[in-house]
């Protein structure tokens, strides 16, 4: 069901949502999350699509905040989509004029009560997510350093503005790698003296993995540059020889270690919906992210000075 409301108010939107629910037989009953997406007209389509796919695992009320021309009169246009083959509801909120600077006043009345709030910036996000008005509404704030023009700088800024509940999709992208790396060290291995993470130049996930390994293992991990795609190799240098996972094509990885047969592992890159679904699975502060981010910022500062 699609409802278009032009030059509307939050009261009318709420009434329309309730009416839509009654007509469709209650699709909000299972909503477990409010997801605020802060996007512009170019990025909203993909972001909302990813959110409705992730919504199969985490049914949510999606509130997409799209800022339009900030000059001129304040005006609110809303587009409500509900029951379109996905659970939950999606509301696109287009804000014109000075209203776009006070988006939180529009979003707050539209949140489902008693239900957690997550804010996601699919594009360039604020340096201090919790300080932004739409971030302040949420207990979980998801940025994406990879979307920044210089991801390394974005990560450093996120580190200094960190508040519990912040997280970044660059960190989410690292999960499959981190999981494989942890499983690798579940096996017996020699003492690890350091290593290297090799990826494309601007790859914040690789930066975070290197920082994570450095922090957890207490030995330095270098960050080297390759042509990609994404992360291409991680090597542990150990007293019993190197342990290497290499993934030259972004899909198929091989695990190589001294005097053991080479093993093949599927390690595909995940799409936005899968990343978002993982991100929505837990809403408590991610301390490992905080520590890795701090480690990265400390390393970057040391290099800079």
């Amino acid at each position, binding site marked *: 069901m699609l409802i278009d409301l032009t030059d509307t108010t939050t009261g009318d939107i709420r009434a329309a949502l309730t009416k839509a629910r009654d007509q469709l037989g209650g699709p909000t009953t299972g909503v477990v999350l409010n997801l605020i997406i802060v996007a512009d007209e170019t990025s909203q389509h993909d972001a909302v699509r990813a959110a409705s796919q992730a919504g*199969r695992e985490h049914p949510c009320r999606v509130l997409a905040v799209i800022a339009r021309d900030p000059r001129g009169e304040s005006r609110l246009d809303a587009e409500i989509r509900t029951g379109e083959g996905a659970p939950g509801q999606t509301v696109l909120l287009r804000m014109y004029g000075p209203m776009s600077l006070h988006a939180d006043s529009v979003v707050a009345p539209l949140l489902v009560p008693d239900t957690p709030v997550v804010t996601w910036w699919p594009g360039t996000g604020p340096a201090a997510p919790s300080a932004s008005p739409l971030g302040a509404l949420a207990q979980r704030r998801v940025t994406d350093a990879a979307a920044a023009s210089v991801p390394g700088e974005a990560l450093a800024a996120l580190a200094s503005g960190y508040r519990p509940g912040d997280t970044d999709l660059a960190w989410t992208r690292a999960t499959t790698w981190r*999981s494989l790396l942890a*499983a690798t060290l*579940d096996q*017996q291995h020699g003492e690890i003296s350091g290593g290297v993470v090799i990826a494309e130049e601007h790859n914040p996930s690789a930066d975070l993995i290197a920082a994570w390994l450095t922090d957890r293992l207490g030995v330095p991990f270098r960050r080297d540059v390759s042509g990609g795609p994404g992360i291409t190799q991680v090597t542990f240098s150990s007293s019993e020889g190197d342990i290497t996972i290499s993934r030259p094509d972004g899909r198929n990885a091989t695990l190589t270690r001294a005097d053991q*047969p080479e*093993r093949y*592992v*599927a390690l*595909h890159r995940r799409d936005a919906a899968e990343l978002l679904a993982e991100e929505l699975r837990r809403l408590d502060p991610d301390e490992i992210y905080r520590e890795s981010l701090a480690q990265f910022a400390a390393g970057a500062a040391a290099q800079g000075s």
Partner: protein
Amino acid sequence: MTSNPLRDPRDRRIPQVAGPCVLVLFGVTGDLASKKLLPAIYDLANRGLLPPGFSLVGFARRDWVDEDFAKLTHDAVKAHARTPFREAVWRQLNEGVRFVPGEFGDDAAFDNLADTVAQLDAERGTGGNYAFYLSIPPKAFPTVVQQLKRSGLSSAPEPDALGHRPWRRVVIEKPFGHDLASARELNSMLDAVFPPHAVFRIDHYLGKETVQNLLALRFANTLFEPIWNRGYVDHVQITMAEDIGIGGRAGYYDGIGAARDVIQNHLLQLLALTAMEEPLSFSADSLRAEKEKALSAVKIPDDLAAGTARGQYSAGWQGGVAVGGFLEEDGIAPDSTTETYAAIRLGIDTRRWAGVPFYLRTGKRLTSRMTEIAVMFQRAPHLPFAATDTQELGQNALVIRVQPDEGITVRFGSKVPGSAMEVRDVNMDFAYGESFTESSPEAYERLLLDVLIGDPPLFPRQEEVELSWQILDPIEEFWATHDKPEQYPAGTTGPASSDALLANDGRAWRRL
């Protein structure tokens, strides 16, 4: 093994992954293998929960090579896997797929199997860790287990210099015997070859999300536990109803019947989880200790004729289809006394449950397919309304729906809108199935991973199996010496004697 610094309990994103190992699957040509086990293995691989090098060996009486088994696996995965098919994941899995042809009694075949897994250790670094999944008829267990012993596959080598010892595990499916004596026999046969902690008995119901959620519901909340006792609960109904008949399982089913097939394992496990006290922790030992306590407190009715009911489906209409009766099924003797419906009333002699009956029922060819635990509460001791106002008010109920449409329903009275005070029952629903279905893993995925990780809380132990048989054996003996099961038309809610069982207590079954 020293702890892994990359693992941290606070890091909830990294899943626990099984260590390197080989899963040896007996009975690969069976239905369970192609519909559940092989797809579950792929789904685990797809979720990144299987280690690099994980290998799968099929064993069957087929003149096959590795590629034939790989094809079977590929087809099973394509047809039944829960997660999307990815070529790269398949390639990872496929590299470790092997097949060993042979009869269960054939020494050479098992020597070949031993060579195959040893070769996998060398080629793929599986580290000598083997799990044997016996998806085969129970009568073949002794032969296979003896062969595993003879070929040396069942015994793990001595620990190496670092104290690291490979593991050996065996997985068996129900039935775990057909009475106490045969269950003990099966166990002593396994016991002679595998230590108790290496035997994993799969009851796939315990891998279901809702069943685990029952523990969360009871022990993570303050809302339910205070009323979870005889002070508030009137009775409990545990139901597993099936709409299908026995299908092609006549050979297995005749002489076993509904009670042995379902009540002994699934329903008594659900009863134990519903009735048990709070475990000290969710470790396997604490959980089993509480389940065993609950099962040992179970009391069967003094008058077995009035406290039990059984039936056989006769020809009738099920869901708009005319179906034949049980005695007309292929492979069933026309004078068979095997029951296809069983209901029993059990008591639990504890302070918490004294005087609260637990009604268990299961049957085939019933109105609909559903499994649920319904905790029925007492009526309010006093209603400050006129009797006519509350005529439509039933008992409050908390229903845990296990399948289909997993979820929880709370039933309570609410005012009907209008000027008169009229109270009627309404439902408050929590549905897993509403949207979580796509992500919630199949029971077999969860259970297989637990086997490979070596995490046993969801697997019943021999003591629980024996306790269940102790409950059921006297009932089976009584039935064996009494009349034939009562006939009930297919597509109905079971025999009249079952309804009488509750009616005698002034209660009624919930509608199927």
